[in-house]
């Protein structure tokens, strides 16, 4: 890689400060801050006026589908998708085939990731064997092999196992992630229970399906005083339980997907399988309240719940198509366009929700621009608009809910550990992607 000069670039840091600085990347990908420079020394110069450098984002909820469902996604495609989205660290959920419920599979995943991933991927282990909710998995052993946290994602952890897991996880200060849904109340539901489900007579998922599970989880967190993280909240009614948990200083954290901040059951075509996700898109009020909860610190993290499926599966009819939609590529652009550009929040807030808080909750490093160290950042251009097309996706699933929409803020290049892992075609003409 030739030396690249970044001239007068606005850089955001994880301490939520930002300043315009000059720096260059040397051929081994090290960052060097500059007080003064001679432009003629550099083959490639980036002039900073509209360019912004950001810390690498963390996505604590994705599905890389490895092992067993590589037709939907694999480590190579998934990590490229993350790189395209400005993401440097992701968690991959264990609801695979087979379920990642033992150390051997975590070992396999880690070696696969080491071989094929361009950025950091942390495996999440299953809480119960085969996610059946009957027996506890060997959490400690999986932790030693590299599991970052534990979850039966895709389904809730059964009450008995969750209680045991929370108590056991204290041994090693582990985090249990629960998917809050009462399957009895969901009962095969396809969309949010509300005006539309009633009008079309469609099986539906009521608010309470999530709410009763959140209440249960908070109660167990209170009893065990262990670390519990609640995945992909969708309803405003769940928030009060988490608010109470925070007031009581319980170790409860939570996340919301970017999609649930932007879509609700009224602003999408409800029978388009691109929008078929679980939890379902709720009502407009939920969408607003979830965002407010982020701002108030009730919800800590924004994730994608990147859940890719094959085109064949997503082209099935609405009742048979699987739940889930990809999100790695679009998460930052979607947040930037919908919230930062409309002044609903600042870039610093995005950094808080997708860099700082994930690092705090799961005790992982922050990856950002630092002098005399390997480059870790992504760069985007203000006011540059992109039309979202299937060709933009590195994920094997190209059916995004943002297809054919216009978004600003797509990363132009992403650097991880000194390597450029993503580069837009029209950016840094002379520099080759690694």
């Amino acid at each position: 890689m030739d030396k690249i000069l970044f001239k007068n670039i606005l850089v955001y840091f994880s301490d939520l400060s930002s300043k315009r600085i000059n720096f260059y990347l040397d051929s081994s990908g090290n960052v060097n801050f500059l007080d003064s420079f001679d432009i003629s020394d550099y083959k490639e110069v980036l002039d900073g006026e509209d360019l912004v450098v950001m810390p690498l984002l963390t996505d604590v909820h994705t599905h890389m589908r490895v092992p067993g469902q590589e037709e939907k996604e694999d480590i190579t495609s998934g990590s490229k998708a993350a790189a395209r989205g400005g993401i440097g660290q992701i968690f991959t959920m264990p609801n695979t085939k087979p379920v990642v419920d033992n150390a051997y599979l975590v070992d396999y995943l880690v070696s696969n990731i080491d071989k094929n991933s361009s950025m950091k991927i942390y495996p999440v282990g299953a809480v119960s064997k085969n996610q059946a909710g009957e027996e506890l998995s060997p959490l400690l052993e999986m932790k030693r092999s590299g599991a970052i946290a534990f979850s039966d994602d895709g389904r809730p952890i059964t009450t008995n196992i969750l209680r045991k897991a929370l108590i056991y996880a204290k041994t090693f200060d582990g985090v249990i992630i629960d998917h809050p849904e009462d399957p009895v109340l969901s009962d095969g539901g396809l969309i949010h229970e509300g005006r539309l489900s009633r009008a079309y007579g469609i099986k539906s998922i009521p608010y309470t399906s999530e709410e009763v599970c959140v209440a249960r989880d908070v109660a167990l967190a209170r009893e065990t005083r262990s670390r519990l993280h609640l995945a992909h909240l969708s309803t405003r009614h769940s928030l009060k339980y988490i608010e109470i948990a925070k007031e009581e200083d319980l170790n409860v954290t939570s996340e919301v997907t970017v999609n649930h901040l932007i879509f609700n059951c009224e602003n999408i075509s409800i029978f388009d399988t691109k929008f078929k996700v679980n939890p379902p898109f709720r009502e407009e009020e939920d969408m607003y309240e979830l965002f407010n909860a982020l701002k108030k610190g009730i919800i800590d993290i924004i994730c994608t719940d990147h859940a890719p499926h094959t085109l064949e599966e997503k082209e099935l009819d609405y009742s048979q198509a699987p739940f889930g939609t990809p999100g790695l590529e679009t998460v930052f652009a979607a947040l930037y366009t919908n919230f930062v550009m409309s002044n609903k929040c600042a870039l610093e807030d995005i950094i808080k929700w997708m860099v700082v808080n994930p690092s705090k909750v799961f005790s992982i490093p922050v990856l950002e621009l630092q002098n005399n160290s390997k480059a870790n950042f992504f760069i985007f251009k203000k006011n540059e608009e992109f039309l979202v097309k299937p060709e933009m996706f590195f994920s094997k699933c190209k059916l995004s809910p943002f297809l054919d929409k216009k978004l600003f803020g797509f990363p132009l290049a992403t650097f991880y550990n000194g390597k450029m892992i993503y580069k837009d075609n029209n950016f840094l003409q002379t520099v080759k992607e690694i």
Partner: protein
Amino acid sequence: MISHLLSTKNLELNEALEIFDNARKFLEVLDRPTKKVPILKGKLILTVFFEPSTRTRTSFEIAGKTLGADVVNLSVSQSSTKKGETIKDTCLTLNAMKPDCIVIRHSVSKIPDYITNFTSAKIVNAGDGSNEHPSQALLDAFTLIQHFGDLSGKKILILGDVLNSRVARSNVWLLKKFGAKVSLCGPSTLVREEFEKEWDVDVYWDLDEAINDADAIIVLRIQLERAASAWIPSTREYSIFYGLNSKRLVNNNKVLIMHPGPMNRGLEISSEVADSDNALIRKQVTNGLAIRMSIFYHLLGHKVDNIGEHLDKNTEQRGY
């Protein structure tokens, strides 16, 4: 001009009236010694029922045959879906048989809308999940108009399992277009209080109060095999509190009684009521034929852009 009959929601009032006008003409055909007019000679109608049904299918079949169309019944009965064939493939296969019209019943809401993407035939929804059953609603409204002339201000009570009923939904959307005062009655699990606001109807949980000033009652079938059973404690309890019997009608003996059939006599309706002079249940069946003839004529009986021109959709990938 609708190109498919999927729902009564997007059916224009004048279109419904046109269907009724022609249905009146077709009623006459049914009284002829030769019950046949060749209006759809050479047209192919497929009835594709993913859910078992005899009477609706027979009604469509007789309607098509009376108009001279070739009607072929396909018993898909979920068998091909069990073999792993998707509904999309099933429809592409059916489309390759060059039908002019496909009458479809499926256990999942909105499937008829979905398959319009994969066939050039006109689609008639013969019942999709708990969503709609537009031909039933049209024949119900037609029967009511035969009796009342005008439905505006008439209180039409729909009694029973509204939650799981496609007949109820199609009727609510359609009867409101005619200005009828639509009321729903049943236990609160089956007649949700949200319906009142969301559908702009009156909700009753007390049958006597609901019957009081009703002009007609559409009694819904309690589908024992369906979810309804989970929402009511027992059929005995249901029939005591929501079964229609002659005692309930003492104060309103002029009210017309309809039922889409098949009836559970003694459960949602007593035999005495079902066989009374006010019951239009048999008339509904005959009207059903005329309405379905009229629907076919409406969709097929004239020059339409792509009728008969079967586009080769097999290669197209369309969104949903």
